[in-house]
C-alpha cells in the first residue's frame, strides 16, 4: 500500500489556523494599519508621525485617522501639523496589489506649527536629505552684522601683499637694464672716434688743393661715415625716447598701484556693515534662508517619492531581523500607481487676531507615479486674506515644482535681530512665499510686511555699547516692517538678495555717526600704505629721472659734435669744389 499524498485530517486544523489568522487580523488590523501609517509616514517625512486612533473598515472602504501629529523635520520641539480627523474613502481592489488608492480624503482641524514636548526629528534632524538641504543652504553666505563691539580696527599690513612696492622694484630693474643697453649701444656707435676722424680730415682739407683728388675722395668717404653714424645715432635717440616714455608710464603706473593698495588696505579695516543690502542680508538673511531651505526640503522630498517616468525604482527594503535588501517597484502603464489620492478636502486653522481662523483647501492628484496618473499634483486654498497654491508636475522628465502662498492679517512670529540685543514683534501682517524649482533652476521670494511693529530691547546686553544704542534709537523709531528676500540661480550656484526698510535707515544713521571714525581709520591705513610704498617709489622715480637727464645730456653733446664735424667737412668740400672745372660726383 502506497503512502497517501495528502494528510486530509490536517485540513481541519489548517482551516482553523486560517480562521484564527482572520480573527487576529480583524482584532488587530486597526493597530497594524496605525503602526504602518506611523512607520511609513515617519520614513517619508523624516520626522515622527503619530496617530492616536485609526479605524479601518474594508467593508465600507474607509479609513478614519484621529489625532494625527506630524513632527517638524527641522524644529525639535515643534509639530509640522496636527489634524483632529482624517477620513479617507479607499478603493479596496488596489490593496490586493499592495497599492493604496484614495478617492477622497477629508481632513478636519488641521493646525500648523504647534508645540510638542519631545524632539520628533528622525536621527536628531540629521537625515541624509536634511543634511543635503543644509549643505545647500551653507552656500548662501549671509554677512555677519559686525556691530557687536562697535569698534573700528586696523589690521596689520603685509608689504608683500601690496602691489606698488612690487611694481617699483620691477621698474627699477627695467630702468637699470635700459640704462645698460643704451650705454652699450652708444659705445657701439663710437661717436667720438668718428668725430675725431672727421676733425682730422677737416684739418687736412685746410691746406688741400682742388686738384688733390685722392684727398677729396678720402674726405667724401669720411663725410659718408659721419652721415651713417648720425643716422644710427638718430635711431638710437628714437629708441631712447620710446624707452624713457615707457619708464615714465611705469612711474605713473606706480600711482595707480598705490590706489589699488589703498583699496586693499581699506578692506583690512574691520568696519561695521554700512551698505544697505548687507544690513538687510545680515538682519533677515538667516530667516529667509530658513524658509527657502524648508521649501527646498519639501520639493526634494517630492522628487524622491514622486519621481518622473516609469522605470523600475529601487528603495531600501523593510526593516526586519534579516537583511532589508532593496525593494524594487515596477510601475506599468494603465495600472494603479502605488499611491494615489484623487481628491483631498482640507480644513485648517491659522492664528489671526483674537481667535484662530479656519480656512479650506483642496488637494488633488497626489500620487507616487505621476507618469501613470498623467496629471500634476495641485493644491489650492483661497479665502479672505489667504491665497495659496502649489503644483508638483513630475509628469514629464524635467520635474517642475512651484508653490506660492500669501497670508494677510495673521499674527507673525517675533524674532531677535542677529548680533543685536533687539527683538522684533511684527504683530499682524502679511507674509508671502513663492518657490519654483524647475530641473536644477530655483527661483523663490519671501516677503513680510507689517504696519504696526513693536521693538523690544535687551537692556543688559546693550549696556555701554554705542552702536547698539544707535541701532536701538534708529529701529525703535520705525513703525513698519517691509522685508523682501529673493533667491535665484541654480541649486549648485544659488544667489540670495535681501532688502528691507530697515536697511537704508540703519545704513544712513550708522554712516553719519561712524563716518568720522571711519575716515580717520582710512587716513591711517593710507599713511601705512604710503610709508611702505613711497620709499621704493621715490628711489625708482629718482633713478628714472637721473637716467633721463644723463641720457639727454650725453646724447645732446654727441649730436652737437656730429653736427659740427659734418657741417665743417661739407663746408670745406664745398669750397674746394667751387673751383671751375672741378665737380664733385
Amino acid at each position: 500500500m502506497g503512502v497517501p499524498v495528502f494528510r486530509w485530517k490536517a485540513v481541519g486544523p489548517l482551516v482553523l489556523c486560517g480562521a484564527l489568522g482572520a480573527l487576529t487580523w480583524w482584532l488587530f488590523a486597526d493597530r497594524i494599519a496605525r503602526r504602518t501609517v506611523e512607520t511609513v509616514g515617519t520614513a517619508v517625512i523624516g520626522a515622527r508621525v503619530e496617530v492616536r486612533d485609526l479605524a479601518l473598515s474594508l467593508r465600507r472602504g474607509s479609513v478614519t485617522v484621529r489625532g494625527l501629529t506630524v513632527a517638524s523635520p527641522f524644529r525639535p520641539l515643534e509639530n509640522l501639523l496636527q489634524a483632529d480627523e482624517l477620513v479617507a474613502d479607499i478603493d479596496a481592489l488596489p490593496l490586493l496589489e499592495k497599492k493604496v488608492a484614495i478617492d477622497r480624503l477629508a481632513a478636519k482641524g488641521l493646525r500648523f506649527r504647534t508645540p510638542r514636548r519631545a524632539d520628533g526629528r528622525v536621527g536628531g534632524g540629521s537625515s541624509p536629505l536634511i543634511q543635503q538641504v543644509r549643505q545647500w543652504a551653507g552656500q548662501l553666505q549671509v554677512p555677519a552684522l559686525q556691530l557687536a563691539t562697535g569698534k573700528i580696527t586696523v589690521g596689520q599690513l603685509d608689504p608683500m601683499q601690496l602691489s606698488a612696492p612690487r611694481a617699483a622694484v620691477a621698474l627699477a630693474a627695467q630702468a637699470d637694464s635700459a640704462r645698460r643697453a643704451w650705454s652699450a649701444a652708444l659705445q657701439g656707435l663710437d661717436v667720438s672716434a668718428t668725430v675725431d676722424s672727421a676733425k682730422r680730415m677737416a684739418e687736412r682739407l685746410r691746406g688741400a688743393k682742388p686738384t688733390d683728388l685722392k684727398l677729396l675722395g678720402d674726405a667724401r668717404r669720411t663725410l659718408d661715415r659721419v652721415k651713417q653714424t648720425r643716422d644710427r645715432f638718430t635711431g638710437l635717440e628714437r629708441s631712447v625716447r620710446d624707452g624713457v616714455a615707457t619708464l615714465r608710464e611705469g612711474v605713473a603706473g606706480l600711482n595707480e598701484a598705490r590706489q589699488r593698495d589703498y583699496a586693499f588696505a581699506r578692506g583690512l579695516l574691520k568696519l561695521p556693515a554700512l551698505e544697505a543690502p548687507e544690513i538687510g542680508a545680515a538682519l533677515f538673511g538667516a530667516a529667509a534662508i530658513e524658509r527657502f531651505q524648508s521649501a527646498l526640503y519639501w520639493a526634494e522630498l517630492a522628487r524622491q517619492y514622486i519621481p518622473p517616468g516609469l522605470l523600475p525604482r529601487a528603495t531600501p527594503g523593510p526593516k526586519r531581523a534579516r537583511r532589508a535588501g532593496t525593494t524594487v517597484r515596477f510601475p506599468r502603464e494603465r495600472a494603479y500607481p502605488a499611491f494615489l489620492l484623487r481628491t483631498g478636502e482640507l480644513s485648517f486653522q491659522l492664528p489671526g487676531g483674537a481667535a484662530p481662523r479656519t480656512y479650506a483647501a483642496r488637494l488633488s492628484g497626489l500620487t507616487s507615479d505621476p507618469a501613470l496618473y498623467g496629471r500634476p499634483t495641485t493644491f489650492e486654498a483661497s479665502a479672505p486674506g489667504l491665497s495659496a497654491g502649489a503644483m508638483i508636475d513630475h509628469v514629464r522628465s524635467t520635474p517642475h515644482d512651484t508653490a506660492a502662498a500669501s497670508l494677510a492679517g495673521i499674527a507673525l512670529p517675533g524674532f531677535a535681530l542677529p548680533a543685536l540685543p533687539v527683538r522684533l514683534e511684527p504683530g499682524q501682517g502679511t507674509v508671502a512665499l513663492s518657490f519654483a524649482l524647475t530641473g536644477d533652476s530655483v527661483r523663490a521670494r519671501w516677503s513680510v510686511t507689517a504696519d504696526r511693529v513693536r521693538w523690544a530691547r535687551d537692556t543688559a546686553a546693550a549696556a555701554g555699547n554705542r552702536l547698539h544704542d544707535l541701532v536701538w534709537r534708529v529701529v525703535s523709531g520705525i513703525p513698519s516692517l517691509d522685508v523682501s528676500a529673493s533667491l535665484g540661480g541654480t541649486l549648485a550656484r544659488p544667489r540670495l538678495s535681501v532688502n528691507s526698510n530697515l536697511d537704508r535707515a540703519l545704513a544712513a544713521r550708522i554712516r553719519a555717526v561712524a563716518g568720522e571714525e571711519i575716515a580717520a581709520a582710512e587716513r591711517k591705513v593710507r599713511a601705512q600704505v604710503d610709508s611702505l610704498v613711497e620709499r621704493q617709489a621715490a628711489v625708482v622715480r629718482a633713478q628714472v629721472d637721473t637716467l633721463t637727464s644723463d641720457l639727454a645730456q650725453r646724447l645732446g653733446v654727441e649730436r652737437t659734435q656730429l653736427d659740427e664735424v659734418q657741417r665743417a667737412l661739407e663746408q670745406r668740400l664745398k669750397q674746394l669744389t667751387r673751383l671751375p672745372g672741378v665737380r664733385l660726383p
Partner: protein
Amino acid sequence: MLVLKLIQSLIATLHSEGTPGQVAAGIALGSILGLTPLMNLHNAVVFALIVILNVSFPGAMLGWALFVPVGFALDPAFDWIGRRLLLETPGLVPLWTGLANMPVVPLTGFNNTVVLGSLAFALAFWLPLFLTTRWGVARYRTTVADRMRRSRLYQAVTASKVYNLYRLFWPET
C-alpha cells in the same frame, strides 16, 4: 537548551515511522521557511503545503530550525541574487512588471532583493536537498539506527516530553 531540542528533534525524526521520502520532503519544505524571510505570503503557502501534504511535520520544523541560521548567513548572497534578477536582468523586467501589477502576488514581497534571492535559492536547492536527505535517512536507518535505538542517548530522548509532543504530529504511513 536549543541545541538539545534540535538533537531530540533530529533523532526523533530519523527514527519516526515516516518513510525517508516523507522526512526528506518535510526537511526540504521546512528549509524554505528557514532560508527566506518568514513574514511573507509565500511562506503561508509553504506552511499550508507542509500541513496538507503527507510529509514529516517534525522534519519540516527541523528543516526550518536548521536553515534559519543558514538564511541569516547567506543574506548577502541572497541580496546579490535578487539584485541580479530584479535590477540587472533587463529581460526579466516585463515578468516582474506583470507580477507586480497582479492581484495578491505583490503581497509576497517578491520585489525585494533578499526575498526573491532567497526564494530562488531555496527553490533551486529544494530538489538536491530532498534527494540527499532521502538517501541519508535511508542509509542511516539501515546502518546506524539499530545501534542508536539501543543507546542511552536515544532512551533519554524518547523518554522526554518533547518526544511525546512530537508523536502527536508524526506522519501517517
